[in-house]
């Protein structure tokens, strides 16, 4: 499943949705809002239609690069407080190495090219988190 949503997710329910008897491992990455020096919340914004399409492309890339059986990516948007879930990636595979490698690949690709932005909201004001990549078109 690929989703960009305001709603929280249930980790166990998402794992149960993808687990299969031929999978020996389900590598899960859970990104949460970190308390960075006075941060109270984050406002996440997406170009939603394009973000979903880009996540689908990244999922397809992962399937073509690694021998894996399932991919779930759920990216939340909206206002999230410290400790709340931002991002869930689950990769199910026969063996651990390809599941870990694919999970890391998906996370790095999300940071590179999915049109989502974060604004930090703290006691002392607001600040857009600088992006890490221009997407290769400088």
């Amino acid at each position: 499943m690929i989703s960009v949503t305001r709603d929280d997710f249930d980790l166990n329910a998402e794992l149960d949705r993808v687990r299969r008897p031929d999978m020996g491992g389900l590598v899960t990455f859970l990104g949460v809002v970190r308390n960075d020096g006075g941060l109270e919340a984050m406002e996440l914004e997406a170009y939603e239609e394009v973000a979903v399409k880009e996540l689908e492309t990244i999922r397809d890339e992962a399937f073509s690069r690694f021998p894996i059986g399932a991919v779930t990516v759920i990216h939340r948007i909206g206002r999230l407080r410290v400790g709340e879930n931002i991002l869930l990636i689950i990769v199910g595979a026969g063996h651990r190495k390809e599941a870990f490698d694919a999970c890391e690949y998906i996370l790095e690709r999300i940071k590179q090219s999915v049109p989502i932005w974060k604004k930090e909201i703290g006691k002392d004001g607001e600040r857009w988190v600088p992006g890490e990549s221009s997407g290769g078109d400088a």
Partner: protein
Amino acid sequence: MQVRVRAFARLREAIGGELTLEVPRDATMGGLLAMVGDVSQEAREALFEESGELRGHVILMHNGSRVRRAEAATLTLAEGDEVALFPPVAGG
């Protein structure tokens, strides 16, 4: 003809939200960007260097696909097109 302009994050704040602009037939992406810059001083400063060149970090999309900066000057728009402007992404 009408073209929809969507901007995100810092650029959305500078431009003031979504715009629907009336552009001449055969308008280019470059021409549209100049019109967006004319919306306000803040919009112009967010999009362009003092020299008038598009700022290095501005990413362009046309109907959901990336547009290289070099192509913007010649890319011709059509009625109902959607152009998006945004800074480098920071999800994950």
